[in-house]
C-alpha cells in the first residue's frame, strides 16, 4: 500500500468496495469495450446483490459504464445520466459459484456500433478491482495499468512475439500472465504495462498468426465520447 491508498482515494460514498469498486468495474468494462455502451445486462453476485442497493452499487456500475470516475459527484444521479446518454440497462442476480468473490458483477455489454463484450470483475477492497473473466476467458488484472489481453492458440513463440514488440517500443511490462485451456488449445496472455501501447501496434498484434483476438485497455483520458475528464 502507498500513502495515496491510506489518505485517499477521493470517492463518492458510502463504501469503497460496494460503491467505488463498483463504479470502477463499470468504467473498466466500458474502456475494455472501447466505445460508448448502448445496452448493459448487469448481473450481481453475492454481497453485491444482497447489500448492493443500500450502497448504491447499481448506480455506481451504471455511472462507470458511462465513463464516470469513482469521485464523480454525478454517481447518485447516474440513472438519469444514462437516459440522456441513451444507455439502457437491466439488473438481475445470479450465483456465479462458491469460489467467486462475494463482490462480483458480470456485465454483458453491447456498444453503440453493435460490438459485444462480457466482463466479469470483482471489487476486492479499498476500491481496487480484479477483472476475472473476459468473453468467457479466465484472466486476472487490476485495470490500473494499460493492459493487453491476447486470445490466441497455444503454440511456441507467441510470448516472444509480444515481448519483442514491447521491447522495440520501449514499453515496460509490469506483470504478465498466461492461461491455457489445454496444450495446443485456446490460450490467453495478459500483459500489464507501464506505458500505453499505440493503436497500430495493438492492430499489428491482432493480425499475427494464431492470434484470435486482442483486447486493449487504455488508461489515456481520450477514451470514448462519454469519458469524464
Amino acid at each position, binding site marked *: *500500500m*502507498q*500513502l*495515496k*491508498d*491510506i*489518505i*485517499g*482515494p*477521493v*470517492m*463518492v*460514498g*458510502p*463504501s*469503497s468496495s460496494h*460503491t*467505488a469498486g463498483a463504479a470502477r468495474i463499470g468504467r473498466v468494462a466500458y474502456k475494455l469495450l472501447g466505445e460508448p455502451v448502448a445496452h448493459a445486462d448487469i448481473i450481481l453476485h453475492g*454481497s453485491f446483490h*444482497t*447489500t448492493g*442497493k*443500500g*450502497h*448504491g452499487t447499481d*448506480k455506481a456500475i451504471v455511472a462507470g459504464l458511462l465513463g464516470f470516475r469513482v*469521485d464523480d*459527484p454525478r*454517481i*447518485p444521479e447516474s440513472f438519469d445520466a444514462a437516459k440522456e446518454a441513451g444507455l439502457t440497462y437491466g439488473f438481475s442476480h445470479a450465483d456465479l459459484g462458491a469460489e467467486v468473490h462475494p463482490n462480483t458483477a458480470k456485465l454483458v455489454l453491447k456498444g453503440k456500433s453493435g460490438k459485444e463484450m462480457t466482463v466479469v470483475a470483482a471489487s476486492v*477492497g*479499498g*476500491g481496487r478491482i480484479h477483472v476475472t473473466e473476459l468473453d468467457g476467458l479466465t484472466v486476472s488484472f487490476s485495470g490500473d495499468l494499460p493492459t493487453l489481453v491476447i486470445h490466441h492458440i497455444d503454440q511456441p513463440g507467441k510470448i516472444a512475439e509480444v515481448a519483442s514488440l514491447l521491447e522495440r517500443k520501449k514499453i515496460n511490462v509490469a506483470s504478465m500472465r498466461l492461461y491455457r485451456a489445454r496444450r495446443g488449445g485456446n490460450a490467453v496472455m495478459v500483459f500489464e504495462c507501464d506505458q500505453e501501447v499505440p493503436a497500430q501496434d495493438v492492430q499489428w498484434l491482432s493480425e499475427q498468426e494464431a492470434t484470435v483476438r486482442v483486447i486493449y485497455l487504455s488508461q489515456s483520458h481520450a477514451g470514448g465520447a462519454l469519458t469524464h475528464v
Partner: protein
Amino acid sequence: MYDTLAQILGISEETKRPFWEVVREEDCNETGLTPEESGRELLRMYRVMKESDAAYDPALRSESGMVGGEGAKLAAYLEEAGADALLGSFSGTVCRRALQMAASNACMRRIVAAPTAGSCGVLPAILISMEERYGYAEEDIVKALYTAGAIGGVIAARASLSGAAGGCQAEVGSAAAMAAGAAVQLRGGSGEQILHAAAIALKNLLGLACDPVAGLVEVPCVKRNVIGAMDALSAADMALAGITSVIPADEVIDAMGRIGRELPENIRETGEGGLAATPTGVAMRDRLFTSEKAE
C-alpha cells in the same frame, strides 16, 4: 511504506529530521514523485476534505432513511448551549464535523477515504477544526497528513484497515490513531509523543465490532466516527501531557491485527451479528429487503 513506527522514529531521531519528513522521503522513493508533487497530492486530499465539509447538506437522507440531518441537529444544540454543552465548544465542533462527513458518505456524497470510506469523518474533523482554531497553514496540515498516513500505512502492513478483516477497530480505530498522531504533530509534540498518541488511541478502541445494520455503512458507522474523533483528541492531549503508552505502538498494532483475526465472522462487516442481529436491526434489514423485492 515502513513496517514499524519505531523504525520511522529511529530514522527521524538519528538524522535529526522531523517524523513527517522521513515519511515523505519514503513516499517519494516509492512513487517516483518529487517532494513538491507528493505534497501537492496530499494538499489536494485536504482541500477535498474541506470541500466535502463545506458541502454538507442537512436535508440529505441515506437510501435506507436511517441517516441524515444529525450534524445540523448537533450544530443547533451547540449553538444554543454555547459553553454549557457537555462537550465544550471545540470538542463539539469536532463531533459535528465527524458526524457530518460520515453522514455525507452514507448519502453518496464525495469524501476522502481516510483510511476507509466508513471512517472518513475522523481525520478531517480533527484537521479542519484545528486549522480553524489555531490558524495553521495548509503546509502544516500536509505535514500532519504524512504522519497520519505513516500510522495508517504501518497498520495496513502489520494488521488491517478493513472492517471485513479486522472489525471496526481496523477502520475507526485506525482513523483515530492516525488523527491522534497528526494532532500531536500539529501541536508541536515530539516523534515519540506521536507514537504514544497513536498507541493510546488505538488501544482504546481495540476489539470494536463491525456490525452494520443491514450491512450498510450507516448504523453504527456514522456515530462511531464521533467516538473515533474524541478518542483521537483525548489520546493526543494525554500524549502531549507526557503520558505514555505502556505497550509500544507497533505492539498495539500487532494486538489489533491478532484480535481482528480472532473476531467471529458475524462481527466482521457481514451485517449478521452485534447490532445488526438485534430485533430492531433485523426488522430494519427485513424492511429494506422486502421493499427492494417489491419494486
